[in-house]
């Protein structure tokens, strides 16, 4: 095989810039090119993500959310990758991307309203350049690809990143998105968080490929792997892909190897399909601990700063809690308001009937 084609294949090992004990690998291919502030910011985002994530689980347990999909253990993958995007870049999430949302400054309360069932979506995707959470698996990969094709047609330098899971790589839509992205040279990064499971199904049931990154070559797209519990590796590998896309060199497929430490969602019982040992092992590879050690070694984190960040995170979580706790329902009028961009009178009768009913109920009470 020609050298060119070999470059589409991932190297044997995922890129790792921090060892599990937090010491830097010092890989000359991947210099750590971040200011102290930036490094501290990565830490802050991860800690806030974790606190809000934890709060969301609590809120669900207390009946405030219908369901919640935790990103515990995936903070480095999400924060590292999202931090590599410019403010003008676009992010298309699945449903588990609280960490990416945190980096993008999305109000977590908006996301929680989706999980609460107040609205189907709440934040403004166009203003925030952060797509709506997407539940039908893999479907967002096509929206992201089309979007990236669109920015390219406009001659913009915008890069798009799309998040998907290991399970999502089995869906036909992911295949078609990679196919289109390759053919149209779309400026997009496919960021697969391989958290080892799709609900209860281990990644070995999703594909017999050596790794998910080996799928890239089948689309003429370079496949890359990074240690998804290493925020610096996640950042560096994503940044490289983003720069590549921005240069006009097309898409990249990244597999971030990580682990989903919570159950699939709050409705799931992970005890039925994985062992305590496996979980304990994953906990030992905690992304925040690893990065904290590194920062401490570099003198960028001390107890005071740690405490300050923890307080900020707790405040963020408390804010979510107070905004969500017993928040009012949405306005039933909106059931009809946005079905069509241009008003349709076909809905008038239903709307009138619903209004009548609501009025009658209010009278009775």
């Amino acid at each position, binding site marked *: 095989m020609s050298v060119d084609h070999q470059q589409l294949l991932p190297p044997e090992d995922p890129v790792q810039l921090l060892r599990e004990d937090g010491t830097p690998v010092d890989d000359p291919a991947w210099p750590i090119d971040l200011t102290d502030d930036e490094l501290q910011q990565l830490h802050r985002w991860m800690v806030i993500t974790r606190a809000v994530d934890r709060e969301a689980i609590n809120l669900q347990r207390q009946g405030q959310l219908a369901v919640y999909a935790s990103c515990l253990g995936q903070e480095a993958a999400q924060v590292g990758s999202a931090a590599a995007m410019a403010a003008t870049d676009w992010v298309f999430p699945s449903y588990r991307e609280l960490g990416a949302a945190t980096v993008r400054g999305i109000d977590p309360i908006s996301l929680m309203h989706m999980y609460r*069932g107040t609205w189907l979506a709440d934040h403004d995707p166009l203003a925030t350049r952060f797509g709506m959470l997407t539940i039908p698996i893999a479907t967002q990969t096509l929206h992201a690809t089309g979007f990236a094709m669109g920015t390219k047609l406009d001659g913009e330098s915008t890069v798009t990143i799309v998040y998907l899971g290991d399970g999502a790589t*089995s869906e036909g839509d992911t295949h078609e998105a990679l196919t289109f992205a390759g053919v149209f040279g779309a400026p997009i990064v496919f960021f697969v968080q391989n958290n080892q499971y799709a609900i209860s199904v281990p990644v070995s049931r999703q594909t017999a490929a050596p790794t998910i990154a080996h799928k890239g070559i089948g689309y003429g797209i370079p496949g890359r792997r990074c240690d998804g519990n290493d925020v610096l590796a996640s950042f560096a590998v994503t940044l490289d892909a983003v720069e590549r896309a921005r240069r006009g060199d097309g898409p990249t497929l990244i597999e971030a190897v990580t682990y989903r430490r919570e159950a699939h969602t709050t409705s799931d019982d992970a005890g039925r399909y994985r062992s305590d040992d496996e979980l304990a092992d994953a906990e030992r590879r905690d992304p925040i601990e690893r990065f904290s050690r590194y920062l401490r070694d570099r003198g960028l984190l001390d107890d005071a700063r740690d405490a300050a960040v923890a307080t900020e995170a707790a405040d963020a979580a408390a804010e979510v809690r107070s905004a969500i706790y017993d928040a009012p329902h949405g306005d039933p009028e909106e059931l009809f308001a946005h079905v069509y961009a241009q008003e349709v009178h076909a809905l008038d009768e239903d709307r009138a009937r619903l209004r009548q009913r609501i009025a009658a109920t209010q009278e009775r009470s």
Partner: protein
Amino acid sequence: MAVSIAQALNQALLDVMEDDPRVLVFGEDVGRLGGVFRITDGLQQKFGTDRCFDTPLAESGIVGTAIGLAMAGWRPVPEIQFDGFAFPAFEQIVSHLAKFTNRSRGTVRVPVTLRIPYGGGIGAIEHHSESPEAYWVHTPGLRVMTPSTPADAYGMLREAIVSDDPVIFLEPKRRYWSKSDVVLPASTPPASRALVRREGRTATVIAYGPTVRIALDAADAAAARGWSLEVIDLRSLAPLDLDTVAASVERTGRAIVVHEAPRTLGIGAEVAARLQEATFYSLEAPVQRVTGFDTPYPPARLEGFWLPDAERVLDAVAHTFTY
């Protein structure tokens, strides 16, 4: 013994797999986990990973391979995890599952039973509360069944699996935990027959799956207004047993169809179109439809405004008296 619909379905699968070694159960999370609703619980332990297995996350793949497995002489019972996730398999269902027998002039049978939990009212996030039955009923070649009681859940699922035709088996997920006293194995009338669940003389309320309970609740409440409502459970949506429905409407002169799916081209449209023909001279008022609105399924906190309920059924009955 009090048995839930979920338990009855699970028992039906256990019994049918025991009886017929060609039955296979597969889908997302149906193996180790036993399904997100535990309908397939214990099957993998009991029958091994050959007969009950997890698949990759790919619905077209699940239905498409089911067709191939059927051709190889197996009797596949794949699961789609939620109503909203059958859509990636739409082409395989509509262009092949429904048409294989006809295309092959009866040579190739595809005895696939595609189990799909459906319907709303469980406070879920988007795509987990859809009622897609009209898509399947409009597609010639498919049988579509939906039980409303534990006995029917058991009997109809077994009937579906034994059938040599492809069956879309819609499980009313918000009734999974409804119990009633029943001894399994229960034997039930063929799914092709609609059943009168309650007799009455004022009006006929036609329901299926999750809305049968609503119709019965309406019938309870109607008594206070001096009305006696006849409640019919359609059970099979394709084919539709209109004879049973028409016979009832001939007597009552009033008909109300209740379903969660949006009104336009929901099952109510077909029932109304057939009744206005079959019972033209008997109808005292137009057939009423109490359904979801013609809008996407709403967020959980608003679903109560959207879903039909007993009060809306009673309003519709009242409305028939204005004619």
